[in-house]
């Protein structure tokens, strides 16, 4: 399984990511998920979220999750970008792509990846307001 992980303060460029995709002839399903910063946390309006990562550990934990996916589903590739630092409202903090032969495993692997990330990958949010 091809794996690509980026943890960076750069904005996520969906169009560029789509162009760089390479997939084999046997692959029939691509799923992309974007997690986008919403304009409120709880009831309070915010302008951005400041993401902090324990980067070295985050990379390791993402790697463990990718390995678990590779064991469980016939996924050809996973690409994941988590933006850190200040991410303004309406911009994505997370981009995940899973390429697989069929839709069910693409959906299952993508949801598994995000669920596991939310349990294990050491990244935290601090909401910012004006």
């Amino acid at each position: 399984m091809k794996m690509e992980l980026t943890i960076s303060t750069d904005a996520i460029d969906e169009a560029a990511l789509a162009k760089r995709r390479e997939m084999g002839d046997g692959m029939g399903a691509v799923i992309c998920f974007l997690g986008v910063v919403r304009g409120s946390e709880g009831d309070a309006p915010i302008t951005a979220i400041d993401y902090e990562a324990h980067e070295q550990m985050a990379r390791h934990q993402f790697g463990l999750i990718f390995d678990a996916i590779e064991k469980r589903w016939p996924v050809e590739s996973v690409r994941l970008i988590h933006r850190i630092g200040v991410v303004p409202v309406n911009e994505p903090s997370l981009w995940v792509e899973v390429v697989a032969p069929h839709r069910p495993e693409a959906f299952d692997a993508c949801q598994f990846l995000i669920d596991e990330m939310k349990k294990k990958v050491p990244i935290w949010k601090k909401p910012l307001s004006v």
Partner: protein
Amino acid sequence: MIIAVQFWSYFADFAGCKKTEIEIENGTTLAKLHERVCEQFPKLAEAKNSTLKAVGVNYQDDDFVLSDGDEVSFFPPVQGG
């Protein structure tokens, strides 16, 4: 021996620092270190039950025995995404 301890997210605010060093005896477990940390930083004691603990890049259980050179992280529930 000396253990490097890091606090992440609002645990750094609770502790008033991002990093510290704590001297422990051989055979000290992660749970024991956590107790020491909670004594030294009382606000962290309040969050004790929701604290996640890692040594290096891996989560470890309370009975993990620390070794010289270990870097220990304490942090609140993660929130990636």
